[in-house]
């Protein structure tokens, strides 16, 4: 799976938590990086921050596919407009940071099964 976050700490810890559970995790530092990765390889789940420098998570979501993998968006704060846009772009769900590790793993498991 692909973890996209511009914040080093968040990117690394989320990747560590997931790989600790046995998932194969790749990281990307921003939207463009994520698109490059997505063109190279197929992922079963994408975990992506909404607000990033350059292109944001929602615009990347619109470009992914077809067929798109389930995309779990994460955000520290999202206004009503962003949440609506995320739903319209077809996100699997939006997680509000900070996301407890248990909740994160739970959502990822459901997304893979979907």
């Amino acid at each position, binding site marked *: 799976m692909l973890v996209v976050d511009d914040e080093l700490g968040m990117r690394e*810890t989320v990747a*560590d*938590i997931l790989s*600790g559970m046995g998932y194969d995790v790749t990281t990307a530092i921003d939207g463009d990086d994520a698109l490059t990765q997505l063109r190279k390889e197929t992922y079963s789940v994408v975990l992506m921050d909404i607000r990033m420098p350059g292109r944001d998570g929602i615009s990347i979501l619109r470009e992914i596919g077809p067929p798109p993998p389930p995309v779990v968006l994460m955000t520290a*704060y*999202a206004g009503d407009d962003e*949440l609506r846009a995320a739903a319209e772009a077809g996100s699997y769900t939006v997680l509000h*940071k*900070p996301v407890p590790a248990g909740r994160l793993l739970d959502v990822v498991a459901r997304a893979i099964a979907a």
Partner: protein
Amino acid sequence: MMPDSLDSTTDFGGGAAAPDASPPPRRRGPVRLLSAGLFLLLAAGGGGIALSSRRVVKDQEKRLLQQRSTEVGALFNLSGARLQEALHTGSTVVTLTHDDAGAFASTAQAAVASRLVGAMAVVQDDGQGGYRVLHSQGPGLAPDGPLPEPVVAALARAGSDGQFVSTPVFVVDGQRRLGYAVLIPGLTPRTLIYGQSALTQSTTSPSRQNQLFSDLDGAVYAGSRVDPAQLVLSTPRFPIGKGQVRTPFKLGADTWLLELSANHPLVSTLAARQPWLYLIGGLLAAILVAALVEVLLRRRQFALALVEERTGQLRRSLADLDAAQQQLVHQERLAAIGQLASAVGHELRNPLGVLGNVFYLLRGRLGSDDPWVERQLATGEREVGAATLIVSDLLEFSRPRQPVMEDVDVAAIVDEVLAVAPPPSGIEVARRLAPDLPPMRADRSQLRQVLLNLVSNAYDAMPEGGLMVVEADQVDGCVDLTVADTGGGIADDALPRLFEPFFTTKAKGIGLGLSVAHRIVEAHGGSLEARSRGGTGASFTVTLPSAAVPAATIQ
């Protein structure tokens, strides 16, 4: 009498709106002393001018009458001159003709015919204190007849100066008579020419009167006194002795009296009316000026009251403006603080999230074999959770967002909250969730925040330890989720203010938790109720609609 034009124009609009404004001034007050005084002064002035003007008119009238009287006297004087001429003619004839009766008769006839006298005679001193008539012409004077005593007295007065003398009015045979005589010079014994006229009620014709008195009323007396017995001549209806002016005039050697009255104004009509004009004009001016002053006074009073009222309104408006401005500044500052808080909160969420992840990873690597490590990890997780809740409340308060509804499994969210916020030591937690609970329709993240707040409050309410019960039941298509504690309860006066922002009874905390929880639940269309069980605890119940879908399908 004062016009009160202010009555119709006065408008104290807005005056009643201000409770502390003084009542509007009475508009129908008493007439001011100033205007009343002005009115009296001007009226008195007008009256004074009218009076003095009336006196002037009277004086002028009298002066004019006097002047006319002198003129009339001159006319009588002229008559006297003609009479004297007639008598002298008789005298000359007697002297020249040496007492020729025929010559005298023709002269006397001419005099009688010219109506200067009624009869004419030559009379001579009889040496016995009387006079006898030598020759006579005209009625009432018989030759050799005796002459009455007043005539004799007059005849005795005639002197050699050529002036004729007149008799007083005397009565013979019931007829009033008047005589004139002139001395014939150079004859002995004393010989005189005597003329006599009978006075009728109206001795002269109206035309003659008119010629004499012109347009005046008056009377002529023989002698220098007003004496009805000596009345020679008067205009009809003239009140004898009541004339306005008396003028003596010369008739021969004697002084007669002329009495006159004006029977119409001698002064011109306009001039005669001047006093009235002054009086009316003065009164009108007084009324006008006093009314004007009164109106001005009232205007001024009204204006002053208005200015006072407007000043009050202005002052109040200024105060309102000031308060509004301060409130604006306050709100602006609050908004700035809100922005700052949300910015800080936003920036803190990521590091807090990372910290949480780090604790999770550490726990996985270090295991729970070592109680010391376990204790440190738990403390770190709890504090990260507390910091996260504070940040979330701040963000939710300063930038509230609409809930994004999804079906939320009640047991899962309760477990998650209890995992993130595990009970401190000494506090027991009881989960009493009804079996077969349907999921709640809620924004998962926001519901989690609500529960975190309620649970963390419950922990804080029991510093000495106690029991926290989390209960969930299905009621009429809704789910009731209750968090109850066995703490000290909520004071009665705190209960109504519980959901106010920044209201707190705790020593720590900023007082946003319950207010944010309340707002979130209301935004969901649900309700949040607080109950206090006296001093034995409190409970908070969130009621939200339940989903119609089976619990198995939710994530």
